[in-house]
Every structure is written in C-alpha cells, then in structure tokens.
C-alpha cells in the first residue's frame, strides 16, 4: 500500500498559502476576496474557497491587513478590500526570507 503525501501537502500548503496571499496583496496593493481567489486559482495554487476568507479575517484581526468596505460598485453588493499594513509588509518580508532559506537548505541537503 503506497503512502499518500496528502497529509504532508495539506500541512505545507497552509503556511505557503498565507505567504502567497500576502505577496499577492502587496503586488495588487488593494484587492477584494473574490478577486484574490481568482488570481490565486489562475496561478494554479490549489485552494478551497472557504479557506481563504477565514485566513483574511484572522490576518486582519492580527493587524497584517487593513480592510475597508467599498459600496461604490455596481450591482449593489458591497466588497471588502484588503491591503497590507506596515506590519503585514514586514511579516511578508520575514516569511519570504524564511521560505528562500528553506529552499536553499533543501538544495544543499540534496547535493549530499
């Protein structure tokens, strides 16, 4: 019976997803939930829609993101826009640095 990597993938994707979300918000400067999900999906990042909103909610509560409701759009349903705070930007830099470091370490280990 082959061992599945699903468990490992789920674990590693969780941290990776946060990094990708912060990175995308930095690039876009200002983005709303649905748009964010579309862009992540377009980049081939596997995700469940119901996972993203709770993450955004927590990151906002932690002060990494600032959120504003925008009611100006057509069709009359308000949209919640997210942007990086200074803390969020700092955290993103730290996460990116750590991620790059981990890739470097793995490469080193694989060389033997």
């Amino acid at each position: 019976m082959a061992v599945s990597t699903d468990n490992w993938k789920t674990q590693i994707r969780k941290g990776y997803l946060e990094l990708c979300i912060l990175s995308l918000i930095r690039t876009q400067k200002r983005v709303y939930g649905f748009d964010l999900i579309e862009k992540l999906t377009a980049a081939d990042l596997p995700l469940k829609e119901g996972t993203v909103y709770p993450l955004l909610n927590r990151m906002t509560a932690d002060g990494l993101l600032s959120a504003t409701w925008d009611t100006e759009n057509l069709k009359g349903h308000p949209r919640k826009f997210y942007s990086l705070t200074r803390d969020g930007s700092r955290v993103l830099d730290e996460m990116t640095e750590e991620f790059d470091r981990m890739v470097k370490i793995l490469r080193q280990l694989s060389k033997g």
Partner: protein
Amino acid sequence: MPTDPKLERYLSSLDRALAPLLVSERADILIEIKSHVSSALERDPQLSMDRVLAALGEPETVANRYLMERGKAPVKPPISPIVKWLVVGFLGTVAMVLFFVAFLAVKFSDKLDLDSTMKGGSKGRYEGTFAWKSGETRPLVIQTVNSKIDLETASGSDFAWNCKGIAGKEPTIREDEKAITLDFGGVSSVKCELKIPENAQLSMDILNGKLAVSEPRFHLNAKLGNGKVSIQPDHSRSYRYDLSVMSGKVDDFESSKDESAYRISVNVSNGVISNEE
C-alpha cells in the same frame, strides 16, 4: 432584490455556527460571504447556487475555520439535518431519562450502600487541582454531559475542582498544545465547584443543567442545551457580554466596549440567563 432561499439557509447555518463570535463580527463575515456568492454568480451566470455554495463548503466547516483561526473551540461537524434531528431527539430523551435516574440516585444515595472499592474517597467525591501557568493562552475546556456547575475565580494560581459524581468514574485532566481539558468521561449528572484561574479562557458545552457564575475574573464561552445560567458580575470589573437564548429569556446585563473587559459569551437553547443567584 429578493435573496435566494438556499443562500439564506446557508447564511443562517453559518450565522449559527459562528455563535462564539461577537454579533458585529458575524455580520461582517456574512456580508462578505454573501458578496462572494454574488461575485461568483456575476462572473459565471451559468453556475447554480448549489455549485457556488458547494465550492465554499459546508457552512459549519467554514465557520469552524473562522473559529479555529481565532483560537476558539470549533463547533461539531455537519450531519444531514434529518439525521441530526433524529439523533438530537433520541439523545434528548436518553438524557432526560438519565438525568431523572441520576437525580433519584443522588436523592437516595444516603440510603444506597455504594461500592466501597470506588477510588477517590467517600461516595464519589472528587477533588483535584491543576497548576496554571501565568499568561497561559490555551483555553480550559470542561467536558461534561448533564451537570450543575458553580464557577468562581480561583484565589490562588491553580485551577481546582471539587465534584460529586455518580458511578465510580473520576474526571481526568489532560493537556495538549490546543487546550487543557477536564473530561468527565461522559458521566451523566455531575455536581461541581470549579475555581477558575484569573484571565483564563474557559469553554464549556453542557447538554442539560445549571451553571452559576460568580464574580468571574476570567473569559467564558458556554453553551447550554436546556437549563439555567446565572451570572453575578464582579462590580469592580467590566464585561463584554454576548448572551443568547433560543427559547426562554435573558436578563439585562451591562456590557462594556473596554478592550480589557472579560468576554462572557453564553448561548442557551431552552432556558434562562439570569442576573440573580
């Protein structure tokens, strides 16, 4: 513009499952999810409401993710509504029968010759303490079925319990990185005095019973199926209340917007939340 009934049902389930959060937080989440659904349908008018909601996931699952991200205890996973109500009805009846039997047993326990091989001393009285670290962030979870619980703030730094149970089963305390749990092992009918350390986050889910909270200097997240909760605030402290009763009544409590206020969140299905003893 009328809202789709399926969407309303989804949002309603989501709202209920988010009960531990403040009402303004719930409202924010519901509007955002509703906006997501509208955006999805705009982007692809061919999509059915069922598909969009399925892509989000079961409302209880989504709610649990919100709660877990905020470090709160998750709600139970979803089951089909019919099965859920059959099970609830059955358990409710069993619970009532057990509660009645336990009540009789307690009433006549002096006349019964209880098993002398029981651990922990005379007639099922159990006491214990657990050293509580200052600045502990993990919630304290009490797992019980039917019970009468008196909550007070601990004068020292330990979490302490003094309980009377039926059968010879002692409550066990265990901890992992998520929580510290006092588990009564499904023993029905438990009567306890609990001393809760200051600033702890206490979480309880009781099926039937009574909860008396006296001058709490800790945070409480309690759910009671049937029964009465009475809360006596410490008048030298401020509290942020989130109280709801599905069928029954809630007395008035003075809620504060202060950041440092103790959060008291109580949800009762059938019963009363009272400000008297």
